[in-house]
């Protein structure tokens, strides 16, 4: 997701109002992570928090994202995500939904490119029924014909809507161009044709291949003790198959470097998406690239891109860049939306900023401000059980270790000007950007 909210600071000597500046990062407050292992061998991370009587549980199956959809069955993972709570065990779709509503539990599934995820929240008082329904959905989904048809209709409707949404059109064209003949280049929701072919058997096959204990990761936050959680883990996940059978996804680098692709749409404002290869989450330079990106275009109001595009020239409401790592590829991407007549100017400014940072790196002031922001704002995200669970899940998915929250500030603080200069030079290649423009940009044509 584009991080447009966050901001950065890049000038020190301008604040007579604020005599004293505290540049020390907020200490990560007491987040006590317990590792729980159930009698059945299911592992989970838990942050116990009794202040509100709710329990949040997030989980992921590491190899179950849309990239694993079989050829011709694109859209399968998303379809499963929408179908799991549409009837399970003895309960029809409506009966299941009604019971879920009566327990006031919140349950949703989703498929990203690489992962299949679930997110669950219940009131402590209703947890018996809520966990029973979660277990039922995950272990015994019915995939009845009628709900399958209904959900298919909804997905097709959503595909039709996306087909006219400039952001979605742009993303689709970008990934298609960058990853031809690779699962990452296919539309995650599938196509109308591929979704039409999906039947209950496909959904069941998906569950067998991907929803298994060997790829499961679980994170929990809220009002539940380790002993209680152990029981719940076995109840929900204990009877899933031990092993899945996901195919291998090939490692890939984006192609189409340097290409410009214009998708003609009669709209007053062009939506622009640009990017080239990036670095993976596991790469040793990750933290350096994170700090660099915050200064270039990930820092909201005072990133260089925002300063040049929005503040100085009024060219756009938003402009941004982000590191976009996948399991089998890595991208560095960005975007802007601007009136058709001003696309060329905006791209010129963006490429110039890319080049400037590649050649000169960043300033000491920018570096200091980026560090205090990244470290200081991090704990602000942990304000609900759901967000804590979601962070614990991400830390496990990326193998960052239980002490990550304590370690992270020093990893960020260790980044030097020379580090950024080195990484920027390698990473930022303005001539390699693949640019997709949806709209009628003045004076720009697709690269032949």
């Amino acid at each position: 997701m584009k991080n447009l909210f966050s901001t950065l600071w890049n000038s020190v000597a301008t604040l007579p109002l604020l005599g004293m500046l505290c540049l020390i990062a907020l200490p990560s407050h007491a987040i006590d992570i317990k590792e729980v292992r159930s009698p059945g061998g299911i592992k989970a991370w838990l942050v116990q928090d009794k202040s509100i009587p709710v329990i949040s549980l997030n989980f992921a199956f590491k190899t179950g994202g849309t990239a694993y959809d079989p050829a011709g069955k694109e859209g399968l993972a998303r379809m499963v995500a929408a179908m799991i709570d549409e009837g399970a065990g003895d309960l029809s779709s409506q009966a299941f939904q009604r019971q879920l509503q009566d327990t006031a539990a919140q349950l949703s599934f989703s498929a990203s490119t690489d992962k299949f995820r679930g997110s669950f929240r219940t009131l402590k008082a209703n947890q018996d029924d809520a966990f029973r329904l979660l277990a039922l959905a995950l272990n015994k989904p019915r995939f009845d014909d009628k709900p399958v048809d209904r959900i298919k209709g909804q997905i097709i409707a959503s595909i039709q809507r996306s087909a006219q949404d400039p952001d979605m059109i742009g993303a689709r064209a970008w990934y298609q161009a960058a990853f031809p003949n690779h699962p990452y280049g296919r539309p995650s929701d599938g196509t109308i044709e591929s979704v039409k072919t999906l039947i209950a058997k496909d959904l069941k096959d998906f569950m067998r291949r991907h929803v298994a204990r060997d790829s499961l990761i679980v994170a929990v936050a809220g009002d539940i003790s380790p002993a209680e959680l152990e029981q719940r883990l076995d109840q929900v996940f204990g009877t899933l198959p031990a092993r899945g059978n996901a195919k291998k996804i090939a490692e890939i680098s984006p192609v189409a470097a340097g290409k410009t692709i214009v998708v003609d749409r009669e709209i007053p404002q062009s939506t622009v998406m640009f990017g080239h290869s990036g670095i993976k989450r596991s790469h040793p330079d990750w933290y350096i690239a994170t700090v660099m990106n915050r200064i270039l275009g990930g820092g909201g109001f005072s990133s260089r891109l925002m300063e040049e595009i929005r503040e100085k020239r009024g060219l756009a409401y938003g402009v941004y860049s982000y590191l976009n790592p996948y399991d089998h590829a890595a991208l560095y991407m960005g975007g802007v939306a601007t009136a058709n007549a001003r696309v060329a100017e905006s791209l010129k400014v963006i490429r110039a900023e890319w080049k400037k940072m590649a050649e000169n790196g960043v300033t000491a002031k920018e570096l200091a401000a980026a560090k205090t922001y990244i470290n200081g704002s991090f704990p602000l995200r942990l304000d609900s059980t759901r967000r804590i669970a979601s962070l614990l899940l991400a830390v496990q998915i990326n193998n960052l270790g239980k002490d990550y929250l304590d370690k992270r500030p020093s990893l960020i603080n260790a980044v030097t000007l020379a580090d950024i200069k080195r990484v920027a030079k390698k990473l930022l290649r303005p001539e390699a950007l693949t640019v997709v423009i949806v709209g009628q940009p003045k004076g720009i044509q697709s690269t032949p």
Partner: protein
Amino acid sequence: MIPLRLQTAVLGIVTAMVTLIATPSSSAVFNPESFMLKNGMQVVVIPNRRAPVVSHMVWYKTGAADEPRGKSGIAHFFEHLMFKGTKSVPPGEFSKIIARHGGRDNAFTTQDYTAYFQIVARDKLDLVMRLESDRMRNLVLTDAEVLPERDVVLEERRSRTDNNPGSQLWEASRAALFLNHPYKIPVIGWKHEIEQLTTKDALDFYKRYYVPNNAILIVAGDVDAKELKPLAEKYYGVIPRGRKIVRDRIKEPPHLAGRRVEMASRRVGQPSISQTYLAPSYATAKGNQAYALLVLAEIFGGSSTAQLYRSLVVDQALASSAGAWFGADALDYGTFGLSASPRPGVPLKKVEVALQAEVKKLLKKGVTAKELKRAVSSMVASAVYARDSLRAAPNIIGRALSTGRTIADVESWPERIKSVTVDEVNAAARAVLRTEASVTAILRKKKKAGTD
């Protein structure tokens, strides 16, 4: 509530495709503390000791519906300009200072209020109070900052509205629903009027509305009233009271004729229909009516087991989505809405007929005690979930206080919802679901020949 100064996705505009659950919620357990500064500024503190973090907000009881005629968009445009400089903070530095201290900040504008917020570590509370109170009185605006920002707002309008036929139709339907009241004008403003806004317009707006007696300070998190009071007095209490502001907006005449707006565009991917009814709001409803309308929206179209979804989507298999919502948070008028989108291959007309049949059935048969009980219990649960975050409480309370309600109203929300009766829901349905007080909005795909 619509424009944020900056945000991740174009939200806002309720297109007919989305099934919306009526905005919840709150509970008798936020337990806020409140006091008044001498200059008329209300202060609310919502202690929440979970983390050493505070959310600091200032709400101005002024929004787009308070704009002078012909100056549409000034409230939102001015919100952007509040991030320019003051006598002591150079232009563009505000957000950078917050960020350098590890905080996040932003703002948003609606018809009825404009709010600014920072989320920071508790030891930065003093800093953000100093900065926020500074820009309440010391803002400096010149054409050099104002004019490029106007271009930014025009780009924002293109993103939100002009690039999106669903949003364009939503604007048209609001303009048709309100015959007289300023809610008919979009929060972001009409393009031709935004283009003409000047630095002087902004400063006039600032002088008139950005005064402590028109503002509410809300701080949630690791702080209590005893700690906050001296800071509030130090930073906000010293600002002189401004002119008294009376919010007495023009009223709607009786609605005698239902309206219909239609739009066909090649840029429509999925057709849809919505029907929006003029309704009372929390602030204007008599007795339990607003609460009854919330329950009605939940029963009729708030979930996948609600009447609309069950009938149109599951049983008759005509629609891919169908729902109802009630916007109760408004100073003057609420709106009750229905929406549906056809399943691929089903003509929109069929969905419209089925939707109307459901409304008729609802008005004839009413809701049942069982449906009421189920809806109420899930709504009351949402109030517990609202406590599971630092952000919900200040937002819910700020919205209430700037639209004519009280803290007691917010705190008693679950009790009021529980007290709603079947008769009240049915009476509210009959009072509000009147075609003559509604606008139907039709969004079609334009094909090469003909439509739909």
